């Protein structure tokens, strides 16, 4: 179970434990936390929602993409859903590799891919309103109905 959607607080150490290996000299983690200010606007809290079964499959796909590109990599990703307050942990990505440069690159790849292909959405709640992020005009839309050609059935 290296790829999970969590309904409660994520235990960071338990995600790290999944990628510990005797062949690894480096483990990187990315911990996405709820930031109070975005473009000067104060967030009160967030709601994350997932298409859970597909999200787990897509997290696993990202892990497999990483293992193909970075030899010897191990990957674990947990994304939380539900209501999150400021500084709460939304996502933890742990990647272990034999050498450190790969651990950074592969981890960065994971978060970028999550933002492209994993069906999870956040709704920001401010003092003066709320909005699902991702349907805003400044976001890239997908007129062809897909994120990009390479993402289909990879």
């Amino acid at each position, binding site marked *: 179970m290296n790829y999970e959607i969590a309904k409660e607080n994520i235990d960071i150490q338990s995600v790290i434990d999944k990628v510990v290996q005797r062949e690894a000299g480096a483990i990187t983690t990315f911990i996405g936390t709820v930031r109070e200010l975005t473009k000067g606007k104060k967030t009160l809290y967030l709601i994350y929602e997932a298409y859970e079964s597909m999200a787990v499959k897509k997290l696993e796909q990202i892990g497999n993409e990483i293992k193909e590109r970075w030899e010897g990599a191990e990957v674990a990703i947990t994304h939380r859903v539900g209501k999150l307050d400021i500084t709460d942990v939304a*996502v933890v990505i742990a990647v272990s590799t034999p050498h450190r440069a790969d651990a950074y690159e592969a981890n960065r790849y994971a978060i970028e891919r999550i933002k492209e292909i994993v069906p*999870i959405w956040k709704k920001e709640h401010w003092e003066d309103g709320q909005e699902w992020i*991702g*349907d805003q005009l400044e*976001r890239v839309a997908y007129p062809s*109905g*897909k994120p990009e050609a390479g993402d289909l059935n990879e």
Partner: protein
Amino acid sequence: MNKVLFFAHLRDEAGVESAEIEAAGKTVAQLKEIVAETYKLGKLDSAMAAINEEFAPNEEVIQEGDVIAFIPPVSGG
């Protein structure tokens, strides 16, 4: 019959989480048109579609029993 799933703002606008629709033989694009009209969904064009939890292009033909999800631009992470 086919199950159709809505998420995030699409679910808020549609007012339902899912619907049962006869969509076998139709393309994703055709189903989008029908659903957009039925549920008055303005931004369905910018949504991706998934068939059985895999992204599917607009021209893919839906089979009997397929589960179709409309996926607004994602914002996880």
